[in-house]
């Protein structure tokens, strides 16, 4: 998943000057709040999820790893909710 997130972030940042590792601080790497919006939308589209407001923190979008973590968490929550609905 981190590879997919990295591809999204790279695309939204329009050729960042530094190589993005999973733990690279995106804010320090120069990402703007507008680019973060694009990343969030692309991530939601790619993984077919809707991140809740409490997940939309600066921290969650600090690194590729933290974004992937937020996505995983939401996917798990969505799966749990789906299984509850079928229980």
């Amino acid at each position, binding site marked *: 998943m981190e590879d997919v997130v990295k591809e999204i972030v790279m695309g939204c940042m329009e050729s960042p*000057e530094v190589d993005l590792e999973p733990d690279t601080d995106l804010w*320090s790497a*120069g990402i703007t*709040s507008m680019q*973060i*919006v694009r990343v969030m939308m692309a991530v939601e589209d790619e993984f077919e999820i809707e991140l809740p407001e409490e997940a*939309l*923190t600066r*921290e*969650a979008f600090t690194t590729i790893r933290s974004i992937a973590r937020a996505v995983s968490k939401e996917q798990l929550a969505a799966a749990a909710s789906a299984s509850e609905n079928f229980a």
Partner: protein
Amino acid sequence: MAGVGNAGEGHPAHDPVQLARKVSVLLAGNAPEVDCAASFPTESVAALHRAGLLNAACEKEYGGLGCTLEDLVQIGIELGRGCGSTAMTWAMHQVQIACLARHGGTGVRERLASIVADGTLVASVTSERGIGGSLRTSTAAIMPDGDLVRLEKHAPTVSYARHAGAFLVTARRAPDASPGDQIALYVDAEQASLVPAGSAWNPMGMRGTCSPGFTFAATAPATQVLPVNFGEIADATMVPLSHLLWAACWTGIAADAFRRAQSVVRQRTRNDESHTEPRLASASSALTQTRALLTEAIGRYRPIWADPTALGAHGGPALTVLLNNVKILASTLTVEVAQLSLEICGMAGYSEDGPLSVARHLRDLYSARLMIGNERLLSTNARLSLLQRN
């Protein structure tokens, strides 16, 4: 001018908001002359220092009052009632001093106690020609020179620059850094030169803030570069506190205009018991909305005010949208209050003089929509609203 009064005189053992209410009477007395002459409110700022209010936002360990956000906003409202220019100068200084106290390195923090004790005003040099009003973009860059850094910046406006003893300046981290890779540099007045640039200061309102343009040059030790990215300083302190305190000052100005209109309606009601004035109700409603927004934003920003490292967990698009809304709505709703007050007061309100004049209030409040242009904030919110979960 490094100091504006006698340090430490009469520091308050009282409620800071009550104190602000008392000092605001003096501000109101000085306001007409400050406005008319477009002169800096030296006496009013000295009174704030004597009362201990000049560094209300600074932690007690440095000699400040360490006020809560609620108290700071209330102080801003009280000062705004007396004099918009003095209140706005106070608000801008609070923001700079809070940035230094919360994000400064050891070298900068060591200076804070004397800045507070001396009543030194700290001005910001964040505006820059050619960046389109974007706080988060710089053209000027610091140039390393041994243990020093050098900087030259063309600033179209620097509030109370000639009356400040220190400056907080934004710039690119290095000559080859991108426009968004910014630092903040603390500069003593002795380390800076300011050459007037652009038109002389003769604006419509907020005339006492004395905010003309300058070519700002400085040479300072590299240790005076704040150790965190400017983006973090802006998000954790500068932007939220500016929006809250500016909105507070505007609310105070509008509240004073409302009080004048109210006195007119009271008199009319004494003469005619059946008299009602729906415009007063509309003005009251606009003031209530502004105060409610402030209360909501204080609550959402409080964890980050308590601890700047909470920015990661509590900052994000929802907070940005809310704070931008506070600024956008306060800057227009308060003008509405003053406009309604003008209609109620009639020609007495339109006059520049007299107890029912709301002319200065209106002129001062029209600056609000320009201080970080509302269009810019609306554009940001338009994007961030794509993520909003209502």
